[in-house]
């Protein structure tokens, strides 16, 4: 490419990335401003002074500590649940031969089409009958039964492992469960990380589930807390942006650490070009 083409490309990339990134900068900048500077015109890009205590005060206006604890509980337990259960099921689909396997796998694929919005009303009724409404159980327990997309993803990984390995292990006296647990799991560890990342992101940002299943403020998650905070007339934009920034920190860190796993996961799900 010639120098002209290169400069045009760079100019375009710089301008468009600026457009993509500016709301972000605006969020962090607002979160550090003093109340009087929020409505300054023209906008003040670099806060003067930097008010880091906005974060602390916003955090204590509403019980965000409690919301954080609830969110972390859900994130940790659902991630453990989905990684273990999805990998067990995926192992069954990929490595064991039994009657009905293909039919069930077809059902699994079809089940990905069922939207949450359709099942959530009866789920609400079901959880109400079980006495689970307004407990974190509604959001945690289902993750221990495998998630269709994760099962599909992990099955693709399991299929790439040579079968000699299973046979050799069984001749050496491993039970099928030991083959899964001691031989296969370590091999597919990168895929487990991918699944874990997806789950952490989903659970961290989930809004509709908590909105429907949780009522008492003590059980609120961060996203519900942020929405509650937004609805309060006392809330200033700087405090709101401080909380929004804090809520965004976790997905950001995970994104930076897990970039290669995310991309690897997408590639492995069989979408080729």
């Amino acid at each position, binding site marked *: 490419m010639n120098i002209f083409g290169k400069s045009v490309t760079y100019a375009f990339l710089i301008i468009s*990335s600026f457009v993509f990134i500016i709301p972000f900068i605006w969020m962090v900048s607002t979160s550090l401003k003093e109340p009087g500077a929020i409505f300054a015109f023209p906008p003040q890009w670099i806060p003067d002074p930097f008010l880091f205590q906005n974060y602390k005060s916003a955090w204590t206006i509403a019980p965000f500590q409690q919301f954080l604890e609830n969110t972390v509980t859900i994130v940790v337990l659902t991630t453990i649940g989905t990684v273990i259960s999805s990998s067990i099921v995926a192992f*069954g689909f990929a490595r064991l031969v039994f009657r009905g396997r293909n039919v069930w796998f077809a059902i699994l694929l079809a089940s990905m089409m069922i939207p949450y919005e359709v099942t959530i009303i009866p789920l609400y*009724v079901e959880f109400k009958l079980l006495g689970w409404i307004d407990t974190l159980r509604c959001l945690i327990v289902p993750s221990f039964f495998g998630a269709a997309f994760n099962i599909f993803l992990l099955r693709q990984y399991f299929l790439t492992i040579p079968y000699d390995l299973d046979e050799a292990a069984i001749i050496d006296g491993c039970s099928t469960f030991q083959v899964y647990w001691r031989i296969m799991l370590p091999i597919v560890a990168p895929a487990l990380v991918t699944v874990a990342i997806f789950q952490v992101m989903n659970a961290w*940002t989930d809004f509709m589930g908590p909105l429907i299943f949780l009522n008492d403020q003590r059980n609120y998650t961060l996203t519900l807390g942020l929405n509650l905070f*937004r609805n309060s007339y006392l809330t200033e934009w700087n405090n709101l942006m401080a909380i*929004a920034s804090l809520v965004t920190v976790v997905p950001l860190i995970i994104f930076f650490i897990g970039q290669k796993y995310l991309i690897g996961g997408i590639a492995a799900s069989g979408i080729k070009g």
Partner: protein
Amino acid sequence: MNKMTRQFEGYSFIGLWIIGFMAFSLGPLLFSLIISFFKWSLLDKPVFIGLKNYIDMFKLDPLFWKSLKVTFTYAVVSVPLGLIVSLLLAILLNLKLKGMGIFRTLFYLPSVITGVAAAVLWMWVLQPDFGILNYFLSFLGIQGPDWLGDPNWALTSLIMMSVWGSGGGIVIFLAGLQNIPQLLYDVSSIDGATKFRQFRAITIPMITPSIFFNLIMGVIGAFRTFTQGYVMTNGGPLNSTYFYALYIYNKAFQDLQMGYAAALSWILFIIIAVLTLLVFKTSSSWVYYETERKG
């Protein structure tokens, strides 16, 4: 190992999912179909009313049609727009120039902010008097509208926001682009193909599977849009952002019309199923997979 133990073993591994599927997916799905034939407020006894919920919906409920229209408009505009933007950016990022890793991260970042955090952030960006969008527009001499408060602009605002978050698609397109053998470009340029012709005859056909994937995910995602409507506009102004999923939620959990909401949700299920099948069925005519070369 005999046949019986094999069966037993297989089902003891996948059984976990089968139970979960029955309890949390298929069961609720069928239960939802059943209660869609009832009038039920959750507090009293359900009353069987046959197809009345469905008939009322189609004949007597303007809000049903309005929310369908809003959701369709949103899907039809935001999905192709997001695809075009992310494909264009992916093609640029795929050029072998310095610093592309940084740009890739910058474009991807917004898609990391989702849900309520993104909604709250955009309420501030779109704020009519002090938001930065109208500030930048004022440079061009444009007096920006009251984005979320104006029925003519509210849905447009949410579409802009969705394009901003379409960076996730860039990654998928990049993976697709990087899988195209360089050989195809080399050979065709020896034959005198222009860059534009290469783009049309090589790049586009080779990445159609990625386009396909992004399209399905995008359409389904658009039909399930809820958070923006709930947090930012509450369906307003004048119902201009009254998304279908928001309507289901309000019918069920605000008006406590469980049967009616279940009927609404079944219509959503059918729409998503039909669209997905449609995209799958037609895909063979426009999706090119390397392994199934046709003559």
